[in-house]
């Protein structure tokens, strides 16, 4: 433990020192990277400005975090108690997960008055990670404990209460670790567009035009500090719980087989696909919004397939897709590779990864728009910058899931290979990697749809091509049909990628 701490401290100090030197000597991107001391000086200079913004963001993120997690936990319990409900809600779950936030912010701002849009985005951002983690946690239980409860006459309710809820805690806390930074990100992103006067997003917006990278980094780091605090609290709780309750055996990690006859299963699959469209329609109907701005599924169909707009709209959409899709696949693979390497490194050399974690967290909470000048100066405006942004958007949730998987490997398994002399990398290869396979696929499912978001952000901020640019331009031209079409197509593409990951998982775990 002592050497691990020292490695953490040394690595952190080394990174900060290198950063300070690079920043002071303007070594990176001809000085667009400010040094830590410059950032601190700017922070001190602006300190009076920060408080109202920080308070507003924390408030939004916290309320959204509570709402989103409450819904997620209740949904997970429902899904485990009534498996059909999970299959029915599958379409909605994936759609919520895959919705690119940049596409829905303007719509949310129009549909929900005042604070509503900001809270909704923060809540949406936390729902999926918590719901997935909780569902896995409720399922991955020690069957012998269930046998005990059953032996004493306990029904499904008792199993839920005495076994599932308790043993889900480590997984839930793992989910909350992802959810906490997400809430902050969601809040900031929504502040960006909702016209609120206070909030770090609003502050960032006013500061963008000042060509003051130190200020932008200060705002980004303030966001990171808030997110990091949430992450640390969840991680601390997770550590206490997992240390005390680590399972002795390795759980199988298999999904419960779908029950029911073929026809019934197909009916549920179709219903699950249609449900998001019904909800979409219903929300617009309840919102009472004008059909000019709020396109229903029928409105989008009309826009894409009927004259006068159809032909031109399809052509523009296809051209954008052809630009966006190949690079999405590339970015996806790169993001997963980085996450996997980091997780394995974390298991073998925990000291070094503990030092890298704060930096990883910065990449999650630093609004990318603040980093655009730096990124384009380093990576240019081509494929490199797109892959870099996509990796930064995808790797973190994948990493957390993988690290969780590796941490869940029972000590006894390590002790066994340890007795034969296997340490470090060898022990990893023999025990941890095979045991974490289900987690690798869970990580892929989390990361895959985000790849499209990453590519779209890069297109919007840096390259000016593809779906991201089409979306942004359509917003400017008030081409509402195209805004909704791009949102729909990007969700469909993300869902397709997600399904591909699920299929791969089935094939791989069947072996």
């Amino acid at each position, binding site marked *: 433990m002592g050497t691990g701490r020292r490695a953490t401290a040394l690595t952190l100090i080394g990174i900060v020192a290198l950063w300070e030197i690079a920043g002071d000597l303007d070594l990176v991107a001809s000085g667009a990277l400010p040094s830590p001391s410059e950032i601190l000086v700017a922070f001190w200079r602006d300190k009076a400005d920060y408080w109202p*913004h920080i308070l507003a963001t924390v408030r939004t993120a916290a309320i959204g975090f509570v709402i989103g997690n409450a819904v997620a936990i209740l949904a997970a319990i429902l899904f485990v108690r009534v498996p059909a409900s999970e299959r029915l809600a599958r379409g909605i779950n994936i759609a919520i997960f895959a919705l690119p936030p940049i596409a829905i912010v303007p719509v949310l701002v129009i549909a929900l008055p005042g604070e509503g849009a900001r809270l909704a985005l923060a809540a949406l951002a936390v729902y999926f990670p918590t719901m997935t983690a909780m569902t896995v946690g409720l399922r991955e239980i020690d069957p012998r404990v269930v046998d005990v409860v059953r032996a004493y006459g306990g029904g499904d309710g008792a199993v839920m209460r005495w076994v599932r809820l308790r043993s889900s805690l480590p997984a839930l806390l793992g989910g909350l670790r992802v959810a906490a930074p997400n809430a902050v990100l969601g809040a900031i992103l929504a502040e960006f567009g909702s016209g609120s006067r206070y909030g770090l997003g609003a502050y960032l*917006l*006013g500061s*963008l*035009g000042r060509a003051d990278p130190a200020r932008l980094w200060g705002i980004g780091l303030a966001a990171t500090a808030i997110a990091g605090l949430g992450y640390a609290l969840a991680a601390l709780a997770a550590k206490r719980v997992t240390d005390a309750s680590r399972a002795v055996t390795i759980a199988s990690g298999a999904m419960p087989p779908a029950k029911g006859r073929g026809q019934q299963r197909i009916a549920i699959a179709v219903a699950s696909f249609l449900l998001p469209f019904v909800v979409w329609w219903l929300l617009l109907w309840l919102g*009472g919004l004008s*059909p000019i701005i709020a396109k229903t599924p029928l409105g989008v169909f009309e826009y894409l397939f*009927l004259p006068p707009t159809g032909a031109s709209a399809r052509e523009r959409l296809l051209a954008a897709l052809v630009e966006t899709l190949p690079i999405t696949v590339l970015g996806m693979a790169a993001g997963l590779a980085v996450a996997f390497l980091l997780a394995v490194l974390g298991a073998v050399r925990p000291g070094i990864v503990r030092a890298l974690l704060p930096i990883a967290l910065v990449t999650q909470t630093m609004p990318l728009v603040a980093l655009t000048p730096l990124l384009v*100066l380093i990576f240019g405006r081509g494929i490199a910058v797109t892959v870099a942004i996509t990796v930064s958007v995808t790797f973190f949730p994948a990493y957390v899931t993988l690290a969780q998987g590796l941490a869940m490997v029972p000590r006894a398994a390590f002790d066994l290979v340890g007795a034969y002399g296997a340490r470090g990398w060898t022990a990893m290869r023999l025990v941890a990697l095979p045991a974490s396979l289900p987690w690798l696929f869970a990580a892929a499912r989390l990361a895959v749809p985000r790849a499209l978001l990453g590519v779209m952000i890069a297109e*919007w901020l840096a390259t000016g091509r593809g779906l991201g640019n089409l979306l942004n331009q359509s917003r400017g031209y008030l081409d509402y049909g195209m805004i909704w079409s791009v949102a729909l197509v990007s969700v469909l593409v993300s869902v397709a990628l997600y399904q591909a990951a699920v299929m791969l998982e089935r094939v791989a775990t069947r072996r």
Partner: protein
Amino acid sequence: MKLSLSRRAFLGTAAAGLAAGAMPGYFRNALAATPFNFQASWINDAEFTGYFVAIDEGLYTAGGLDLNYMSGGPDVIPESTLISGTADLTLTTPDTTVKAIVDQGAPFKIIGTQYQKNPIGIVSLAKAPINSPADLVGKTLAVPPVNVISVEAMLKLNNIDKSAVNIVPYAYDPTPLIKGEIDASLDFTTNVPFTIEQAGEKATSFLLYDFGFTIYNDTVVVTEETLKSKRAELVAWLKASRKGWETNLADPAVWPPKFADTWFKGTGRTIENEVFFNTAQKPLIESPNGIFSMDEEGIAKNIEALDQIGIKATREMFDTTLLEEI
């Protein structure tokens, strides 16, 4: 007249019936508006000083208006807030507004304009100056995606092939320009040169307006329905706002410092920047016929310029009668 309903019109009408008739709209009705809602087009900066003066001096209240000022931002589409009913009046760029009228059948009317000349222009560094559209050939120009058609129109008007200019997205941060990653950017010429000078460089700029793209900016837009039902309020708004702007522009250095702890608090910008902005925008706002006025020549120029980018504006989209009532 033959009675035929195209499928598109039919579906549209059916959807409108669904949305507006059958279900009155729970979210919207919850905030039935008694105040007069004004949606600005950007975050609080000098672009809106005249309105802040009018609010703080009680000019709207004196005119019988309970004004609710709403700041904007990059994701706030001003026209959308009119359609959704969140705002009664907003400030827009005429190209998007006219396009929405033509393409979407949006029921908008332009009743005035804050800028007689659009402040948007090409900004570059004085050490590598771009003084005219011809200088852009072979250069990298950062443009907010929204404005790409305007830039392409300006290039076309000056006989420059658009493929000769490398257009990349602009995210409102001048750092890439200062560092030389791009050669020029499209921005408010009233604003960003200040930042560039603060960073130790000299800026040079030209207006798209001066090279043929002759449109207004921050056009005052309302829906036809508001025009009918709230005409008196609109006239009161124009009157109070004109007074606010006249008061502000009498000496552009006076008012921004007074808003340091109110309107401009915590925006992340400096008061010196706002004074620079306020001073630079004065000649673009003032008009011999009074602030907000739209004369026939100006309207004709807008129609002509918009025609260059394939947007068919008509004289009927501009309603000058309210200005006459001030």
